[in-house]
């Protein structure tokens, strides 16, 4: 027992120490901030990008990169970044405001928000931002396993309280874990994408010789339904489906804006 607690504590302490001791990332962040302040958006973007490449994934980083992209004039990438930041934490109001602004200005056109039960479920399952949710889920998981362990090795007379603790922690664990899985899928396997090229032809079949059935503007959010070879079948905000080459899309499932 003591050993388990000790190991957990050790991991935490190690983590805290390593996070505070990470002077390199701190220096990079400061550099990026000052570069942005000095209107050197490209440098700032590259610095933040290097952090994301290192595996530091937070909504604030994405939000900042979105701002840098906007300032550099790359609207579709900016929309991608804001979208990603909101995906990581729906409480990132800055990203929401900026995305709203782009929508109002006509630069962005988003897919319609889910309605009814879907919206309700979505709200509940995204109530806790992903980076917090992970640790909450993990702690509840550890607690639940401990309770179950204790339960099995206790004599019958002392089991009463433990049983209810297990029931409650199990309920919490189910909620947190389902929320965690849901968000994980949304972040890492999102089917949404942003149109990156000025205006693209939406084609009726996955080849460049087929009929163009619509023109999609840059900054439109679309949903990928299926892919064949180098082509994606997409659903546009006005419920039109068609085929688009991969190169025109920035997929939201990646850590950085890129096509398939």
């Amino acid at each position: 027992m003591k050993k388990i607690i000790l190991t957990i504590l050790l991991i935490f302490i190690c983590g805290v120490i390593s996070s505070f001791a990470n002077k390199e990332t701190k220096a990079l962040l400061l550099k990026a901030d000052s570069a942005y302040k000095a209107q050197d958006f490209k440098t700032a973007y590259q610095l933040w990008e290097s952090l994301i490449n290192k595996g530091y994934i937070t909504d604030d980083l994405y939000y900042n990169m979105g701002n840098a992209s906007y300032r550099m004039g790359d609207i579709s990438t900016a929309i991608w970044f804001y979208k990603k930041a909101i995906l990581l934490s729906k409480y990132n109001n800055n990203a929401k405001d900026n995305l709203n602004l782009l929508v109002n200005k006509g630069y962005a056109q988003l897919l319609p928000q889910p309605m009814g039960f879907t919206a309700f479920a979505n709200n509940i399952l995204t109530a806790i931002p992903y980076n917090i949710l992970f640790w909450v889920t993990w702690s509840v998981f550890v607690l639940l396993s401990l309770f179950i362990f204790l339960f099995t090795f206790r004599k019958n007379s002392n089991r009463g309280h433990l049983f209810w603790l297990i029931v409650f922690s199990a309920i919490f664990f189910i909620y947190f874990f389902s929320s965690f899985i849901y968000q994980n899928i949304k972040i890492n396997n999102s089917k949404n994408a942003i149109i990156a090229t000025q205006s693209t032809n939406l084609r009726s079949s996955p080849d460049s010789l087929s009929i163009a059935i619509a023109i999609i503007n840059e900054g439109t959010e679309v949903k990928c339904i299926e892919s064949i070879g180098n082509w994606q079948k997409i659903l546009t905000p006005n419920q039109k489906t068609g085929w688009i080459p991969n190169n025109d899309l920035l997929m939201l499932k990646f850590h950085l804006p890129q096509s398939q």
Partner: protein
Amino acid sequence: MMKRISFLFYFLLIFNSLFAQTFTASTDFSSVPINQSFDVVYELKGANSTRFVRPDFEPFRVIGQQSYTGGGMTVIINNKVINDGSNSQKWIFTLLPTKVGSFTIPPAKVLVDNKWIESNSVTIKVTQAGSPSNNKSQASKPNNQLNKSENIPQVDDDEIFLKAEVNKSNVYLGEPVILNYYIYTRVDVRQYGINKTPSFKGFWSENLLDNNTNAKTTEKTINGKRYVVAHIRSIALYPQETGTLKVDPLEVEAIIVRPVAHRDPFDVFDDFFNDPFNFDPFSMLSPSLITQPEKITLKSNPIQIHVKPLPDGAPASFSNAVGNFTVSASLENDRCFLGENIVYNLLISGKGNLPLINPPQLQLPDNFQVFDPEIEDAFTKSNSGISGTRTFKYIINPLKAGSYTIPPIEFSFFSVTDGKYITVKTPEFNIQVFDPGNANKNSQVAITNLKDDIQYITPIKCLSIFDKLIFNKFFAISLFIIPLILIILVSIFYRKRLKILADFTLQKQKKADREARKRLKYAYKFMKENNSKQFFEQLLSALWQFISDKYVIPLSKLNIDSAKEIMKEHNVDESIIDELLSFIKECQMYAYAPTNSSVDLNYFYKRAFEFIRKKI
């Protein structure tokens, strides 16, 4: 455009008039010079006469006669008889004295309801006349002149003339002047038409009388002569230049029917056949009169108007408005979406040079596009000028969403009555422009929105290693699996240890029997040697060892009391415990007592063996 007025002589036949009837003869003069014509008016009030018998006018010569019914005259316009005023009939005779002296004109007679009514008689004194009046009377015989003259016949000024009148001749720049044209006539005018309209140089003109309506007629007496006055034209003139401005004369072409006094009053038949109006009772009564249509040109008198410049100190917002005005402004809509328009109406009402008012400038914030205003006029023209309203319709096109204020518009005008400039301000207006995209959001905007921009970046203090780790799939999975494995391992280890512990006691118990038997063997050996002391020692150690092993209690802690307790815990029968313990006590007694050979060692051995075999 030709205008038609017919003065026709006729009588109305209306019977059973119940009004009191008066029939009077009158003249404006009591004495006239010789060769100066004058009018004698016979007026019948309150009745309609079917016949009129004129008196003998000797020694006056009748040079003209007119008859009116109603308030002065009856006019036929567009085949409708228009009667105005009181119910009266008039017969007017224009007489020319031929002799000097005092004469009395005998009464005339009218037939009313089959009764003859006589008027009073009129006495006129005729004095010696001067030479110019003599000329005039010569000119009043146009028969001779008409034949000699060219196309434009010369007409006696007295009989018909065109007069121009202005209400003011000394005005400010922009102050309206009303110019009226009247035809004064003593003869019938069949029709008339304006030949030449003056160019009104230096003025902005506005016709006040509708050309389609007929001229209004009145009666006027000038120098004892009755004239029918037709108001043919009324023009509002707005001076655009300062100085003395001249108005050119108006030329009117008219066809007149002039009664002509015949030189030979006895040539009855000739006149009779010449008369185109056979029904005219006068031609029956006075066969010496004939009528003849004639085309004449009338020219008005020229007019001069002095235009003063407006006084100095005009406000910046002065836009040529002279008169008395009130200003009101209103918005047709005070909120709109981007792409729609806001309509601002500036209404100027009053009297003055309304048609000449320039649109005042509308000062707006940068985010607006204003087009030149549409002008909507609602003027009423009267004899005193133009009044009404002029509306400037500004169409404002907002370019950006937000909340704005339209500043007041200043409007200045020169008030002629007060002789100074007056500036009027419209109220301020608040307008709201919504973005159609987020209409609900911006419904209450307190801050004027200039330009939208993105928010500033979020400064990130530091990045936690956890942010890095949770996106590492291996780490994330292992973080869940490691505790699980740990717990499973721990539980397996714990279970095994329990199992081992359980095995240890079992073996000890198993060993207890074997060990006890081993020690009993030694005891048996000492029993054979008859070494009682050694025998008892071995016997005791065998028993203690057996209890210790059996009930898993260390030898050091074992004594009579603890043995009893632990055996009780293991639910051993009380009697057996007591038997065993008493046996042990007996053995101890023999073991530490002095040598005593009389003891049956075999008996003790068998009892101890029994205890162990029974496993207590």
